[in-house]
């Protein structure tokens, strides 16, 4: 089985080499201040500021949706998502954005929303006509 072992060892070497390059693809969740400093493309996790303006007017630009989130350090910034406003956006609790800082706003190309699960929903659904 010697040759097989050689191949296996080669693969392990390749795997280690790949993993070192893969480190470049990874990052920690950034904060707005880090994103501003580095200027890199990063992922930011934050809470939607529900009291701030959410702006989407497709008649003006169907690929421009802006809102505000608070990052993990509590810093609140404007976010521009270059896409339509997703459904149920107002309900989202946690938002993960991929993008970079551009002037004062964080320009995101990708967004993942975490919505409250209905399993956790404490509300009991009562028939409307029953009231």
């Amino acid at each position: 089985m010697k040759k097989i072992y050689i191949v296996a060892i080669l693969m392990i070497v390749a795997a280690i080499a790949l993993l070192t390059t893969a480190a470049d693809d990874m990052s920690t969740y950034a904060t707005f201040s880090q994103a501003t400093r580095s200027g890199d493309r990063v992922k930011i996790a934050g809470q939607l500021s529900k009291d701030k303006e959410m702006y989407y007017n497709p008649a003006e630009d169907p690929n421009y949706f802006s809102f505000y989130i608070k990052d993990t350090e509590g810093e609140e910034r404007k976010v521009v998502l270059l896409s339509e406003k997703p459904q149920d956006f107002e309900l989202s609790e946690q938002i993960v954005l991929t993008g970079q800082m551009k002037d004062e706003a964080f320009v995101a190309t990708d967004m993942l929303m975490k919505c409250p699960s209905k399993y956790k929903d404490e509300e009991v659904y009562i028939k409307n006509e029953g009231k």
Partner: protein
Amino acid sequence: MQDIQYIGEHLLPGQVGQAAIVASFVASLFAGISYFFATQRRDTEEYETWRGMGRWGFLVHGLSIFTIIGVMFYLMVNQYYEYQYVQAHVSEDLPFKYIFSAFWEGQEGSFLLWMFWHVILGLVLMATARQWEAPTLSILSLIQLFIGSMILGIYVGFGDEPSRLGSNPLMLLRDVMDAPIFAKADYAAQLTGSGLNPLLQNYWMTIHPPTLFLGFASTSIPFCYAIAALWTKEHKAWLQPTLRWALFSGGILGIGILMGGAWAYEALSFGGYWAWDPVENMSLVPWLILVAGIHTNLIARSTGHSVRSTYIYYLLTFLFIVYSTFLTRSGVLGDTSVHAFTEMGLEWQLVAFIVFFLGLSGAMMALRFKGIPSPQKEEDTASKEFWMFIGTLVLLFSALIITASTSLPVYNKIVQFFDPAFEGRVITDPEPHYNKYQLWIAIFIGVLSGIAQYLRYRETNFKKYASKFGLHTGIALAATAVLTYIATLWIEAKAWQYLVLLFFGIFTIATNVDYLLTFIRGNLKLAGSAFSHIGFGIMVVGILASGLNKRIISNNPFVMDGLIEGATSEELRRNILLFKDSPLIMPPYEVTYIADTVDTFTRTFTVNYKRRDKEGNVVEEFNLHPNVLYDKSFTKIAASNPSTKRYWNRDIFTHIASLPQVEIDMEYRRQREDSLNYQVLNAPIGQSVSLVDTVPLKEVDTFVVKTYRATVEHINRTPTHPDYQPEEGDIAIGATIQVERDDEEGVFTVNPVLVLRGQLLYSYPEQINALNAKVRLNEGVFDAVFSPETDLDYRSFTFRQGDKIEYNGYQIQFAGFNRKPEHPNYVPREEDVAVSAMISVQAPDGNSYLAQPVYLIRGNRPFNLKDEIPEKGLHFRFTGIDPTSETVELQIAQASKTTQAIPIELATNSLRSDYIVLEAIEFPGINLFWFGATLMMLGMFVSMGRRIGKSV
């Protein structure tokens, strides 16, 4: 609360189901133990007894599972909302066809689906596995025991907070949550269901989960065989029966995964079939390892090599299924996946599931490793088995790097457990990350599955064979070069790595077609592997074509370039605004949003695509029908379903990305309508009136003055409006109004309608989109148009046919009778005797008119229906006929005033809403992907079919 005697609850089926849950759990334990002793004492006379007990145990277990499922369906079909699972997944308006989808929407239902398939497969084993029955079913029962614990829902431990084992699908809502409503004894009748997520109300949700779970369940069988063989030291005999099961499993699991992709592509708006989402990855990983196992299994059967690897691969396959269950169901993927379940307290049970079977597998392998036979002589480098084995290592390697990246959240959790300050790491852009590694895997697989087909098992004398091998490889390479060149004319490779992949994808096709024709001479029974490998090659070409050359047609031409480093503008701006009836050029198409129709909660749009040649002739035209599904309250869009035009060589995919807010939320629309600032204008017919509107400019402290002009052209007593459905007794008035604005070119004609139905007024306004204006009629229009009957001073005249009189300067002639009278307010009945008088009127100004008042006898009583000439205010009644003298009596009156000015209302802040936000993507060659991938799975079934006939 305990004292309340609840009424209207259906507790019996729940109790039956609870009993079945406990019975299934206990019976699987019993079956597992019995089969364990049957295996341990397989050479003694006790064997039969133990096996018999095992069978009974497993049958009772199976029956209990069917009972639980049956009870749950019973509760769901009857909508007994006092049960938490029913309340969470069913609703009154859920179509019956989605009851299955609702069943496996929740975690508990999908666990039951998994167990259901295990029972079915276990029964097949019981009937066919002979000496393997006892050990395999012992292991399978053990697996069932673990999955069964997930739905047990009993509390173990002591103290104030005993931990709960499993989540019971038959819990009553009042036991799960605390709410004031449970203080009422008859609360059950007042509950309603929350229903199935509209995104899941799709036929794919009916067929994808059962197929995928059959795939999951079927991986347990090679696992059971592997443990059984290690246990009984039958290291050779297990290879044959296991191979069939592994091929079956590979095919089904593969199809299950593909269906997920097809669902995402066809029914969801993801705009693709694979996104490297963790949930997708973790269903692919076991499949890859299983395929590796199938290959070493083949080697082991033909040469005796690789038995150990076969064990390891089959054990790993199942372990990765369990690991994937853990990842998708524990909530650990919450931040990184769009479709993982949320946590529900099963994490530690799932960890125990993995740890137990990992421990079992590891221990069995360690105990038996030395005893597993393996030939002294190593594989020859020119032998088929050598290169096949390398191939399986490549597959394993692929699986492990996908797992490593996907497990990042698990790694984060573990490190954070020891070091809470650790910041979790995350892959910034997953798709390129996975693609760049899997690209090379696919290239290796392409090379290996090409040349390995030409090699022979247990090669002893390659020198003799080398020329044949060289010849075929040479021909295949030449054919591949030509085909690759042709392919590049059609699809752009974009980077040299992709060109290499394209080359070796085609190389696999060429070599395997050659193998099919010249080595096995078209013998279809042996063609399974060739089919699968050809399928793989075609799939690779399809992925390159549809992925690399995917083109966003709805690319906004007005892009801001260079906004984001690394991302092209095409990727950034996927959506385009499409106004109704105004075509937009999205090369090569001219796209027009033509129409939309609403049917209950679904609104379907018609989008027309046209392609023209240089002369402007239409050479291609089709309509697509994407739709959106509103939620029950019409305040949001619950799902947006794409529509795809399929050609053999490309797809055009279209989906509604967004709509104007007033079209999404009817509540908002009402508010918006109420906030419109209508101004009344009194417009005499034919005269222009004007309105000056001041518009504040955003952010600047100035105003713009805009002047609107409106002219009422004429009044219509029988008006039509797209939204107005006439009913008997309606009094309806419409006006044709021309509106223009000084800063906007063109005159816009609108026809608003106002209807008086009983005591209620219904207004049908009209929107002028180009002016952002809305026009409606003021209710004063009735006074302006109609003269009250009491104000009229009728005079009687007697006419003979043809008589002419003069009245207030008008020449009035009775021209004759019409025995089939038509009158806006007259609906004929059979019993009626009705006739109208045809009266021609010559006005002093030279115009002539016709009036037709109606005289009728209904039920022996005479009636008359008046007619009028509104422009002149002339009113006519037909009040009697004298048959003897052949005369008629007509009453004529003229209103003191003619029609006054018409009060109309104009709102200048009504934003246009006749548009859709559209995403359109062209996927070239996507059918190659579907065809290739399906062929790959079919190849496995062909191989399995060949092996089923053979004896064990």
